C-alpha cells in the first residue's frame, strides 16, 4: 500500500493506499474515471492503452502507477476535447480513420508521439538511411504505428490521417493551408510488405535499405 501523486493532463491526483500492483491504465480507468485510454489485451500487444509519459508513448497496461510519481502523463483527454480537437483528431475525423473507435484513443496518442519522434529524426526499421529517415513514406508510418492494432482494419485511413498531419507540419513554414489535404496526400494506396526477396533486391539496388556502414561518419 502506498501513497503517490500522479500528474495527468496537467492535473494532480493524490492516491492514498494504492495497491502497488495497480497499473497506470487501471488507475486512470478504475480510480480516476479517465476512461479515454482503453484496455484491449492488457499485455502490451494492442496499443489501445497508449498514453504519453513525459511526452513519450508507452503501453500504460505494462507499467505500474506507483513508478510514475512526478511524471507528466497525458491521455487522449489531454490531447483534445470535442470543442478543441488536435490536428490529428481532426484528421482522424476528416479521413474516416476509425469505425468502432475502440482503438482510436490509443492510435491518436501513439501518432501524437510519432510526430514528435519524426521531428527528432528518429529512424525506424524501414528507414533506408538511418541518419535521414524519410518519415513521410507510407511504409514508415505503417512501421511506426505497428504497436496499435485496429480490429476494424481502418489502417489505410489511419495512415492517411497521420500522413496529412505530417505533411502539413512539414510544409507549415512554407505553404498556405491546403484546401483538402487528404486529397493532396501523396498516400495513394495501401502499403503491404514486399516479399522477402523483393526486399533484398531493393536493398541491393539502392544500397542502403537494410545496411549502414561504420566508419564513414563519426
Amino acid at each position, binding site marked *: 500500500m502506498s501513497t503517490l501523486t500522479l500528474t495527468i493532463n496537467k492535473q494532480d491526483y493524490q492516491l492514498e493506499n494504492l495497491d502497488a500492483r495497480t497499473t497506470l491504465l487501471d488507475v486512470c480507468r478504475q480510480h480516476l474515471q479517465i476512461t479515454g485510454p482503453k484496455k484491449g489485451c492488457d499485455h502490451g500487444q494492442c496499443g489501445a492503452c497508449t498514453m504519453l509519459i513525459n511526452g513519450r508513448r508507452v503501453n500504460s497496461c505494462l507499467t505500474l502507477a506507483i513508478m510514475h510519481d512526478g511524471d507528466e502523463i497525458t491521455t487522449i483527454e489531454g490531447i483534445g476535447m470535442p470543442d478543441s480537437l488536435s490536428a490529428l483528431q481532426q484528421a482522424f475525423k476528416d479521413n474516416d480513420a476509425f469505425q468502432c473507435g475502440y482503438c482510436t484513443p490509443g492510435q491518436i496518442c501513439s501518432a501524437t508521439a510519432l510526430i514528435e519522434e519524426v521531428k527528432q*529524426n528518429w529512424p525506424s526499421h524501414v528507414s533506408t538511411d538511418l541518419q535521414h529517415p524519410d518519415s513521410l513514406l507510407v511504409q514508415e508510418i505503417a512501421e511506426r504505428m505497428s504497436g496499435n492494432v485496429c480490429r476494424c482494419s481502418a489502417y489505410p485511413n489511419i495512415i492517411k490521417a497521420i500522413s496529412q498531419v505530417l505533411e502539413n507540419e512539414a510544409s507549415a513554414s512554407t505553404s498556405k493551408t491546403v484546401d483538402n489535404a487528404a486529397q493532396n496526400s501523396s498516400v495513394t494506396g495501401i502499403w503491404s510488405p514486399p516479399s522477402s526477396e523483393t526486399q533484398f533486391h531493393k536493398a541491393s539496388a539502392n544500397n542502403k535499405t537494410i545496411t549502414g556502414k561504420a566508419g564513414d561518419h*563519426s
Partner: protein
Amino acid sequence: MKRFEYSRADAPKQAATSASSKDASFIAGGTNLLDLMKLEIETPIKLVDITRLELEQVETTADGGLRIGTLVTNSDLAAHPEVIANYPVLSRAILAGATGQLRNRATTGGNFLQRTRCYYFYQTDSACNKREPGTGCPAINGENRTLAVLGTSDSCIAQHPSDMAVAMRLLDATIETVKADGSTRAIDVKDFYCLPKDTPHIENVLEAGELITHVVLPAPIKGMHTYDKVRDRASYAFALVSCAAVVDADDNGNLKTVRLAFGGIGTKPWRNEEVEALLTDTDGNSDVITQAADLLLQDAKGNGQNDFKIPLTRRLLKQVIQRALAGEGA
C-alpha cells in the same frame, strides 16, 4: 498478480542489496516482467524500482567505444547519433524488435534479460522445465515452430528472443554489474548466457541481487553493418531467424572482416567465431559459404515444426555474404 513489496532504489549498491533476498526482482521498463507477473509466471515478493538511478547516459570511452547506462531506453539507444554512425547494426537490431511504445520503456539491461516466448513457458497449465524445473518439456514433441535448433538440450529448446542481444554479441559487448556486497565485475556477453543443459531455469550468470549497471561497446568495427530479420509479419514479431553482420571486403573482393551472429535459432544469441574464420580471407564463393553454413549448423537439431529454420539459416547466411560482396559495403 501476486502481492509484492515495492521500493525505489536511490543508488546501485543499495538496489543490489535490496534485491539480494530470495524472490526479489529489479524492475526498470517492466515490459516483459509485468507481463509475466500478470500471468504469475514471475512471482517476485519484492520489487526494487531502479528507474530513478543515474544510469541513463551514453559516454564515449577512452579507447573509442561507448559505455551505455543500463537505463538507456531501446528508443534512445537506437536513435543515438554515435550508435547510428558507428554501430548501425545495433540500431538496426533494436529497431527490428517490438514497437515504438515498448522500445520507449524497454531498457538496455532489461533487454538482455528477456525471457523466452516459448508457448509452453507462457502456458501455466502445461509442464515446462524452465518455469517449473523437472516437470518436462512438451515443446520437444509439440508446438515448436518458433523454437531453437542450436544449443538445445533434452530439457529445453526455448529460443532466446532478443534482437538487441544478438547485435551486442556480434560487437563483443561487455556487461558491467554491481553485486549486493558492493563489488563490481565485467562479463563479456559471450560468457553471460547459460545453455539450458539440464538446468534451463538458469539463463545467465548473474547472482542474486547482481545489478547490470552499464554495457560497454569496444571501438567501432569498419565494414557494412546489417541486421536481417526473417519473421511471420513485417513488424512487431519475433525472429524466426535473424542475422547481425559486419562484413568488410577489400578491392579484390576478398573478405577481410566477417562477423556473424544469429537470433531465433539458438537458446542464446548465437555466434560461432570458427565460421567467421573460415570465411575470412576468402572470396566468399558458393563452396566456402556452403562450408561455413555446414559448420554453423553441424550440431543443429530440428524437432519437426522448426526443421525449416536450418535451411532458412543457410540461405540467410548466403544472402548476407553475397550482398556484402556485391559491392555496397567495401
